[in-house]
């Protein structure tokens, strides 16, 4: 009803305009140039009425129907109307996650926000963002990365924020109006230098009718990527209402930017840890840098990981790092400065300025005509969608936070549990509950089972692999450390890639919640540690050093729950227990080993130094030390 009234008002106000001056309408063509035509060199995309992905660009009505269909069919995805455009159309955001807002430990989930199609003519954006939505749903039961994200985080995606503008570009897929200041008598290059409205509309549509030739309103609209509160109005043209980068009357004056804030509140804002605004073109990330060195270091690190994943997928998305403290009121500036989180403007391909790679539409064999980069050919978009999804998902996985060790089990050769420890979370802290703590024997065979809080490894076709473009050490590092007669000791266990568990089974049998959230290995308890008394026990601290597949090291002290505040991680300790952003080795599990099974020395001779070696070498050492004892 509301919509009907608005439309009627709009229609009558147009009818009442005293003079409906007509502007010149220009046309993009495949190969024809003239005073009113400009060749881009390949067939011009026309929106396709398809809900599923095609080799081309879908029309808004069908994209929206597709999003709504996914939200209806999948309990993991819910729609939320976050606003209404100037022309009365719904703006809809989607939440991805389970039906609670807490992770598996009961801690409030972190959140991520991805915005799409703020600029109407950037047709690559809704397709790339929709692909991300599709992949999340397709992989919702993967028992790995995506299921983990759905269980433990809150992903908010706003696929099309400038609905009115996007529809206007799709209504006139090959037409534009001439550059401001030019007339029908101007040269074609001048007319096409700053094409406006129709296919090249960038701004939203306040007081704009949907008829392309109307001269009076064609330059109207607000640049929604200049309508935020940080750095509002810093560019001279931000206050010129006909400018391409008009910032509006006030920060967040526009229903579309208000809708973005509403979408952020679904996080909620305080839980946000990542923001991406998805634009085209240039094939770069524009990365804001608030005056916060820890945040900037983390942001640059994740931007490089994003880039490396895209390179692996065949497209180099280069992070262009902004000057510290500068901005132009983009939405990425807003989330970086307001919430101190990694935040950027993604500019989807075609590239610009890369040596050896043609610019804009010439990248696809086109003429390279001015603004042709906004018109990627139909044949390119499927590849573009696929190349970007893995990098975006990796950001969520990374910003979900580092893993911690949840549970440790050690069983003897008869499968009897001799050590059991579990971290129990309560609010922002955890306590280690050691429920079984039997003495172990040096030289005996045991099985170790360790569960982490994330799926820690990536698989390709069932086989362990690097996540696309990343590089981590795949096998876990496990050792026993402690101090005994004569000083400290460190004994590494032999580990291998096959310690990662892809079969279910739980405690001492397989993975627990997600594929590869567990390592399991057989080992011989080291006995080559010197003790001065045959009675009693010596503490062997189990030490675990593992990176997740995004390269984040473990939270070395799970007792403080990791969170995000003031632009950096909190409760994220390194091996020495110091909080920071790098993590380290978790050394929290003291296993008792009977001194009678260790190397008894009378004096303070000191234990032998650290070193590796598998079961065989330990056995050898055991025999040698046995001889030594007997000779005495």
């Amino acid at each position, binding site marked *: 009803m509301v919509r009907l009234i608005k439309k009627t008002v709009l229609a009558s106000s147009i009818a009442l305009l005293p003079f409906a001056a007509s502007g010149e309408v220009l046309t993009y063509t495949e190969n024809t140039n003239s005073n009113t035509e400009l060749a881009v060199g390949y067939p011009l995309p026309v929106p396709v009425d398809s809900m599923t992905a095609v*080799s081309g660009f879908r029309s808004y009505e069908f994209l929206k*129907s597709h999003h709504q269909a996914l939200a209806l*069919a999948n309990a993991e995805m819910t729609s939320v109307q976050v606003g209404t455009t100037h022309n009365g159309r719904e703006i809809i955001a989607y939440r991805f996650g389970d039906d609670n807002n807490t992770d598996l430990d009961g801690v409030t989930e972190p959140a991520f926000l991805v915005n799409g199609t703020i600029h109407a003519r950037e047709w690559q954006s809704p397709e790339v963002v929709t692909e991300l939505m599709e992949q999340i749903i397709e992989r919702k039961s993967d028992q790995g990365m995506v299921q983990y994200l759905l269980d433990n985080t809150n992903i908010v995606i706003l696929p099309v924020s400038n609905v009115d503008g996007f529809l206007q570009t799709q209504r006139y897929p090959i037409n534009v109006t001439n550059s401001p200041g030019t007339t029908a008598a101007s040269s074609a290059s001048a007319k096409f230098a700053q094409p406006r409205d129709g296919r090249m509309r960038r701004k939203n549509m306040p007081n704009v009718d949907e008829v392309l030739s109307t001269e009076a309103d064609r330059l109207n609209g607000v640049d929604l990527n200049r309508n935020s509160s940080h750095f509002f109005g810093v560019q001279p043209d931000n206050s010129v209402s006909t400018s391409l980068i008009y910032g509006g009357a006030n920060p967040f004056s526009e229903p579309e930017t208000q809708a973005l804030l509403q979408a952020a509140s679904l996080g909620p804002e305080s839980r946000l840890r990542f923001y991406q605004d998805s634009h085209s073109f240039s094939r770069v990330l524009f990365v804001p840098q608030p005056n916060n060195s820890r945040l900037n270091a983390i942001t640059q690190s994740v931007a490089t990981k994003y880039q490396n994943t895209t390179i692996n997928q065949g497209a180099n998305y280069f992070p262009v790092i902004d000057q510290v403290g500068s901005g132009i009121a983009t939405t990425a500036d807003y989330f970086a400065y307001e919430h101190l989180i990694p935040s950027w403007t993604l500019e989807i391909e075609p590239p610009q300025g890369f040596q050896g790679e043609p610019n804009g539409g010439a990248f696809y064999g086109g003429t*390279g005509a001015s603004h042709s980069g906004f018109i990627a050919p139909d044949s390119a978009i499927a590849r573009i969608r696929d190349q970007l999804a893995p990098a975006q998902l990796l950001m969520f996985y990374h910003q979900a936070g580092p893993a911690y060790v949840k549970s440790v089990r050690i069983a003897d050769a008869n499968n009897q549990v001799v050590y059991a420890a579990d971290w129990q979370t309560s609010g922002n802290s955890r306590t280690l509950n050691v429920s079984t703590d039997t003495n172990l024997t040096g030289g005996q065979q045991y099985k170790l089972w360790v569960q982490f809080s994330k799926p820690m490894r990536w698989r390709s076709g069932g086989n362990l692999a690097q996540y696309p473009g990343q590089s981590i050490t795949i096998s876990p590092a496990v050792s026993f450390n402690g101090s005994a007669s004569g000083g400290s000791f460190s004994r590494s266990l032999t580990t291998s890639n096959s310690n990662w568990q892809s079969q279910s089974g739980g405690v001492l049998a397989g993975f627990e919640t997600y594929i590869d959230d567990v390592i399991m290995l057989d080992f011989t308890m080291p006995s080559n540690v010197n003790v001065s008394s045959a009675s009693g026990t010596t503490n062997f601290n189990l030490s675990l050093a593992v990176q997740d597949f995004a390269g984040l090291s473990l939270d070395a002290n799970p007792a403080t729950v990791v969170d995000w505040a003031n632009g950096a991680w909190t409760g994220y300790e390194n091996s020495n227990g110091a909080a920071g952003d790098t993590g380290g080795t978790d050394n929290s599990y003291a296993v008792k080993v009977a001194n009678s099974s260790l190397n008894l020395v009378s004096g303070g001779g000191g234990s032998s130094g650290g070193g590796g070696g598998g079961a065989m070498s330990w056995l050898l050492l055991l025999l040698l030390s046995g001889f030594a004892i007997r000779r005495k």
Partner: protein
Amino acid sequence: MKKIAIPILLALAVPTPSLQAERPILMSDINPSQLYSKQQIEVEINNISQKDNGFSILQSEYLMLKAINKLDEQHLSKDDVEFLNQHTQYQSQSFIKHDEGPLPLAIFDIASAAKYKLNQYYVHDKAKEYQRLLESSWENYKQALKTKDLSQVQLAAKLESMNGLNDSQYSEIAKELIVSRNYQSPLVVKAVSNSNDASLVKALLLNSASADANRLLAEKLYQFSNLEQADILQSVVVKNKALASSALMQYAKLPNNVRSNDWLVSQLSDSYLGASAAKAIGITQSQNALSSAKELILDDSSNRTQVANALLALKFANNDYAKSELNELLERDLIKFKDMQQEVAKWLD
């Protein structure tokens, strides 16, 4: 114009900083004087005619691009070709800042324009050869089309040479080409698209996921009878996943007497295509199909996919009947999946 531009180009052949291919030109790579605002660009271009003693970098590049664009690719002299060749490696020296961030962008992409113009010239030149062949011998022409394309230019020239063929010639070429090429071949696509032959079009639509196939589906089917269209579209829906959704939408627009609404309803059970079938039913506004959808929602044995897609059919129909049905389903608690109830409630807000 180009006589002026050539010496300017040589004068400007300053070595640009050697850049790694891995990154774009950044602000730190250029001299601030190379960066122009939109207003400066406008002023510089407007002042070109008033300059007698030399041009700025921006002005020279503007003139270069203008000279390139002015050339008629159908009639290039040897000098023109040389001129274009020289400019294919040109590295722009005047920049404008990217609207969204600190990235300098070449104002005029001279190298791309020159490359494209040259390429067009070679294509036209080669196409003329094929056209001469076509005029002299149909058999030899067909044979030439069938030989392997040695370059993109050759392929484009073949495509261009086909422009004047009639329906039956296209059809003949399509049938012969498909023996040795697949349905992704642009030559096959062009021949089939212009053949006006329903069986050829159907075969292509069943065997291609390309943008060309999409275009064919959207733009060329209308030339066939409604019955032929219905047959082609149903086959595409069943056999070609990539085009199935858009084929369903076109099928929905066919007149009632050739369209099977029962068949559309049966597609609601398809986990991949069911939502598209719901959209198609919405387009048809078929009362019978919407009643069947409602029955599917009420049927105890319906699974999640069926219930979701049947609800969608009512939503997409968006008429008074469908809205009141949805309201009733919600009020009487007849939607058996709780999460779906919540989404449906949002539609009706």
